[in-house]
């Protein structure tokens, strides 16, 4: 079963790293097949940034994301650019403070990832909060796998912070998934 995921936002949010961590978690620690492709080059400097992940139990032939099953949008520009690509019935995940939804959305999950990161003292870990949230909501990657992949991607002195960020996002995601916050429309 092939799943396509697109992470998107603006330059500087660590969007490329999100995709890399997610795919690595799946490929190395969940033992699935996974491919990560960054959006690359001048288009990746400023403006909408994106990175793409394909996860599958089978061999992955075509490596690119064309119709994402999951779109993670962390900026308005990214949301507007990529939302039309979303597969019918696909899931949209947004940072609720940075993205204002237009009409006609399908399934949406909202998280104040940047706000949570700021509450931890480092806005820069918003992407890790989002990864935690993404993991809990989609269940495409196991918690153990994403945790290992996150921790090996960050410098030792930031491990604790990132772990906390991941967990905060994950907890939030679980609640949403269970319908406790009722935000998953």
């Amino acid at each position: 079963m092939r799943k396509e995921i697109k992470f998107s936002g603006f330059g500087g949010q660590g969007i490329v790293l999100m995709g890399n961590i997610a795919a690595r978690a799946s490929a190395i620690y969940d033992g699935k097949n996974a491919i990560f492709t960054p959006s690359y080059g001048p288009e990746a400097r400023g403006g909408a940034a994106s990175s793409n992940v394909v996860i599958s139990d089978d061999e992955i032939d075509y490596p690119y994301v064309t119709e994402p099953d999951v779109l993670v949008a962390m900026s308005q520009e990214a949301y507007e650019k990529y939302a039309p690509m979303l597969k019918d019935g696909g899931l949209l995940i947004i940072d609720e403070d940075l993205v204002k939804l237009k009409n006609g959305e399908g399934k949406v999950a909202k998280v104040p990832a940047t706000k949570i990161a700021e509450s931890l003292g480092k806005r820069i870990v918003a992407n890790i909060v989002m990864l935690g949230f993404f993991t809990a909501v989609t269940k495409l990657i196991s918690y153990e796998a994403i945790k290992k992949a996150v921790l090996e991607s960050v410098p030792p002195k930031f491990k604790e912070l990132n772990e906390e960020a991941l967990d905060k996002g994950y907890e939030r995601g679980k609640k949403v998934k269970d319908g406790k916050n009722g935000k998953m429309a």
Partner: protein
Amino acid sequence: MIKFYSGNIACAEGAIAAGCRFFAGYPITPSTEIAEHMALRLPQVGGIFIQMEDELASMAAILGASWGGMKAMTATSGPGLSLMQENIGLGAMTETPCVVVDVQRAGPSTGMPTLIGQADVMQARWGSHGDYEIIALSPSSPQECFDLTIKSFNLAEEYRVPVILLMDESVSHMSEKVIIPPKEKIKIVERKKPKVKPSEYLPFKADDYVPPMACAGEGYAVHVTGLTHDEKGYPQATSPEVQEKLVRRLCDKIRKNERKLRDIEEFEMEDAKLAIVSFGTTARSCKAAVKRARKRGYKVGLIRLRTIWPFADEYFEKIANEIKQFVVVEVNYGQIKLEVERCVGKKVHLLPKMGGEIHKPEEIYKKIKEVYNGN
């Protein structure tokens, strides 16, 4: 060991694993990560990284390093490969083992620096002037970027020829699982060394096409020149006889070993009536399309070229009658198609792209249906 590498990083790691200890290069998209990773890794293993002033210098430097006794590599993209061509010719003429990685982007000229092209196929083969033969390999996944880089070094050492690894932007930037075998499981080939005394050594005399190689400082006082030279290595630039013998051998050492050098992945080819021919990242889309077509009963298979040069003439000649139709899928306007056509002696269909993206499986599937049903 399982790693999660991009094609570029896998290539650099493959080079280190193959024993490459010298890298000279000039930054160019989309190959730059190879240089960056070599700059990081080589000093850790006692190797040398040098960023040269341009691609001409990079190519010359790896030839020098090879004669200095090291396994050497450079990495570039199409425009850089153009600049390297004169010294690739020197490498062919002087039989210098080395590896040139070309991460193809879309051209001509500056083209689309950050996006895929596969149009350096002919440049890899014919880019330098004069008659010569070269080896070129093409990977379809980060795993193959690792494996085929090692193979490139082994072939360079075995045949004493520059080997071109024709990657493409897509495979260079995608990250995937890469299995790194333990050191002792990796086959490494070293160049043949002379076994005779310096006074008896003829540096360009070959018993089986490839002469043993004495490097600088080994006491053999070898003269190496890009001029037409005799077995002693001395210039004989006005002798058609010496030219005949030398160039024939330089070409034949590759041509006559085509079968040994052949590396083709056949997928669903047993009863295929239509064969897709492809290479590099594009071949992955082809595989997806073949799977889809098979499900719907089309007898279609995929021929994926891992060795591009020397071209598998004999292989295609042999299957030309069994396979009714060939469709070549490539991100250029028909470079491999011309080769297939030459070998099979009939019209070959082409599904080209000019660059910037690979084919989507549905485009290829559509083409399969069209050709298969004779529309």
